[in-house]
């Protein structure tokens, strides 16, 4: 139970952190380059801790790197939202806002939860994630309330991500929904954006059934450990 939770939290952080690292050197401004790599770095740090915990709980002699670099696609339990391609900056921001607002709520609860090891990591991470959510919310508002072009792009970005948000509230997270809805509604209202129409949710990530995008991501990410199986880096 705690093991599954640690894998999910670790995989979310790893995969989204990896996606953000793809922005490096290519963001619209240097300040945004710094912010996106900064969030990516926080997430990779969280991935180290949560996957470390998951590996220890398994008791099969694996470590966080073994989980990150030696599992195949179907063993990853990240949500589908985290693995979506960056798209343009508006889609990246939509993904980040929807995800971080949810992650913040979850980590807040876990920081007070019974499982002490998870609570310790969550308590540290929630400070980072609070910033991520607020940074992304600020840009949802800027883009939604900016120019006609940025408004349209923000709509398209939200539209791309929206069908993956239902999955966030599976696996014991249903109680987060009301508060998340309220936060999202508030930020979208500030941004002059309508909430996307409800759609049939696409799920499967938590059971290892991903989109076509994850496989390409892992092919890059795992290349060196796969190509040099005996090496330590």
């Amino acid at each position, binding site marked *: 139970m705690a093991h599954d939770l640690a894998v999910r939290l670790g995989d979310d952080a790893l995969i989204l952190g990896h996606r953000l690292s793809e922005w490096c050197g290519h963001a619209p401004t240097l300040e945004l*380059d710094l912010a996106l790599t900064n969030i990516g770095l926080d997430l990779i740090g969280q991935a180290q801790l949560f996957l470390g915990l998951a590996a220890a709980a398994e008791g099969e002699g694996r470590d966080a790197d073994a989980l990150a670099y030696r599992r195949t696609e179907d063993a990853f339990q990240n949500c589908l939202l985290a693995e979506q391609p960056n798209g343009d900056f508006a889609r990246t921001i939509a993904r980040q806002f929807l995800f971080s607002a949810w992650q913040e709520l979850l980590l807040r609860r876990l920081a007070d939860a019974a499982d002490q090891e998870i609570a310790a990591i969550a308590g540290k991470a929630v400070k980072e994630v609070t910033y991520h959510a607020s940074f992304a919310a600020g840009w949802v508002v800027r883009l939604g309330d900016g120019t006609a072009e940025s408004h349209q792009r923000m709509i398209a970005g939200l539209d791309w991500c929206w069908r993956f948000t239902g999955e966030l509230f599976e696996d014991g997270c249903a109680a987060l929904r009301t508060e998340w809805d309220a936060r999202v509604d508030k930020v979208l209202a500030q941004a002059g954006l309508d909430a996307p129409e409800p759609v049939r949710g696409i799920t499967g990530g938590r059971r290892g059934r991903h989109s076509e995008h994850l496989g390409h991501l892992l092919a890059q990410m795992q290349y060196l450990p796969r190509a040099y199986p005996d090496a330590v880096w």
Partner: protein
Amino acid sequence: AGRHAAFEARVAADEFIEPKDWMPEAYRKTLIRQISQHAHSEIVGMLPEGNWLTRAPSLRRKAILLAKIQDECGHGLYLYAAAETLGVSRDEMTEALHAGRAKYSTIFNYPTLTWADIGAIGWLVDGAAILNQVPLQRTSYGPYARAMVRICKEESFHQRQGYESMMQLANGTPAQQRMAQDALDRWWWPSLMMFGPPDDNSPNSAQSMRWRIKRDTNDKLRQKFIDVTVPQAQALGLTIPDPDLKWNPARESYDYGAIDWAEFYAVVRGEGPVAKDRIKARIDAWESQSWVREAAMAHEAKRQNKAA
């Protein structure tokens, strides 16, 4: 003429010149060129390392590399800010970079072909950069000197991380050892070129040294780099790709082989192996995303209107 003499006297006395102080136009221009070139190097330098971010072979290495590149972006920001105190805007400097009027370090026009290149860049490229930069902590222009204090501290951290990463490879499997040697083979000579042309072909050096914008000659710094680095390579069990490299007991320094200055000048002219890739990446990021910057300005204007 009086203020000119006073300026020269302050510089000669190792005092800091501050933005509000009078300064000769040539000093200002030289500084803008030097600081913006340095800033551009930090930003373009994110690309060769960013090329391995998505393939970093462990979570720890991925985090270290992300943090390092983030530091470089920060260095770029400090340096642009320092240059802006001289009356040039960041947008103007960016435009000059994209138009090819401003330079950045030639070293970033070489590709990162294997993971070992990430270690080699930390060890050699940051190592060379530190030798160039340490004296600049006492350069005559205050904002530049203060930016360099912070930058140098982070650079030496990067250099140690790079060396540690090379050591891991040098002590690793035969394939990793080959990778490390190959990286040294490719990065050694370009690193030596980072100190600039030889002294007898470096026309502006004397003026820059008088202004304390530079504090050592190119050849002197290059020699220092070689003398520091050769024992480090030996400790790794790697071979410097220079058959003429030899300890000279008389000079208490290493003699070294001839540098291919034709190659250096070709890369300065923009003919480096990946120069086109580098500048295209920067221009694409800038031009295709102008809508984001415009949106932020439009929103800010609306916000201020409402507040008014």
